């Protein structure tokens, strides 16, 4: 996740201090990815070093206020224009676990798949319920208030992303299970063919080459 670009993008709306930035980030993403304030200030220091933000001074209450520079605005424009690069797949613990389960003896892969599917399904149910609640409250919000509406929509978008990701995980697990079942059938068939062949050979009804 690019904290750097997220903070810069928020600064486009006007000067902010660290706690404000953290609050706005979390509000728009439903606190799904909590930021710690140390991270925020370290990031602001780096942005300042790189000439993307400037300290505007004090807001009178001891908060250091930052403002975005022209170079910072260009950086944000470029960020939105660039697709998120996925050249290096993020480490997927579940895929690694299943790959190992499949290649090691004595692991009940089907049980691993089912346990995970139940957990992922439960998560999907929880996200779906949250989304319904969020959609209901977004519909109920007074139309006159433009600000909260936009944040509601942002939160719905994040929830949808979580829902589709959880769905993809369950679908992938379904796929794994189907694939393993087909593989087991094929292996069983091979075993039967070998057994039939050996039985026929033993009965002397078929020539067996050395």
């Amino acid at each position, binding site marked *: 996740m690019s904290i750097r670009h997220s903070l810069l993008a928020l600064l486009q709306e006007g000067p902010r201090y660290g706690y404000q930035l953290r609050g706005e980030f979390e509000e728009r993403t439903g606190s799904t990815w909590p930021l710690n304030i140390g991270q925020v200030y370290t990031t602001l220091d780096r942005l300042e070093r790189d000439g993307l933000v400037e300290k505007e001074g004090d807001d009178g209450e001891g908060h250091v206020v930052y403002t975005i520079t022209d170079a910072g605005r260009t950086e944000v424009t470029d960020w939105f224009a660039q697709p998120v690069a996925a050249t290096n797949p993020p480490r997927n613990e579940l895929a690694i676990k299943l790959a190992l389960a499949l290649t090691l003896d004595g692991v009940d892969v089907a049980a691993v798949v089912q346990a995970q599917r139940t*957990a992922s*399904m439960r998560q999907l*149910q929880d996200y779906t319920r949250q989304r319904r609640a969020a959609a209901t409250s977004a519909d109920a919000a007074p139309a006159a208030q433009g600000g909260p509406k936009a944040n509601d929509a942002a939160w719905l978008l994040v929830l949808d992303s979580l829902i589709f990701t959880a769905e993809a995980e369950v679908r992938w697990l*379904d796929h794994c299970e189907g694939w393993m079942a087909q593989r087991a059938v094929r292996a069983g068939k091979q075993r039967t063919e070998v057994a039939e062949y050996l039985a026929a050979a033993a009965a002397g009804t078929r020539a067996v080459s050395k």
Partner: protein
Amino acid sequence: MSSEVLQLDGVSRTYGAGATAVAALRNVNLTIHAGEFVAVMGPSGSGKSSLLTLAGGLDKATGGEVFVEGTPLGGLSINELARLRRRAVGYVFQDFNLVPTLTAAENVALPRELDGIPARKARRQANDALRLVGIEDLADRFMDQMSGGQQQRVAIARAIVGNRRLILADEPTGALDSATGDGILEVLRGRAEAGAAVVLVTHEARHAGWADRVVFLKDGRIVDEAASQHDPSVLLTGRAH
């Protein structure tokens, strides 16, 4: 009245006999209460649709007993079963099963009229159901004047008309785009919240996500169950950094 709307007690269904017998369901126990929305998932051939047809009294168990609102279906005559289905059970078929020579409203009102409800009242209930699925303005259309998605919504309206206590739906979002599909799930969810027991057979995890409980079937057996947490405050806290 007990809150158990549907109960499957050691239910089995075997097709054929002897060496070629196929067991579609094996000793399934499942209880669904009023107000509950349950999804049934599982691979093709796992017994999902068999479970639904048995629950709806469209097929008979070869072992165990199915109870709808406490009534054992095994002992009912064909007429008694038909009456129970009309009154208590709404069924959404995968292929809709609508009557092409009737309008949308007539299709929806049909089970009510067959049950002896006066035509005018049945028509009013049909309009209410069509409104719930968002197509009240298409009430006078015939089936060949409607898209697949619209017909599907007529089928759902027919299943929910007259506040039926048990709604059974077999992949009811199949012909719909994702936003319209969500609308249908909202309708099913709403029926559960109004006190019906709803059973949804689906292979779409995202749709099953709407349910209170998800039952996983495999080879005719229930292998697991996922129940959502009911405390929203524990959700999304302390999640991924």
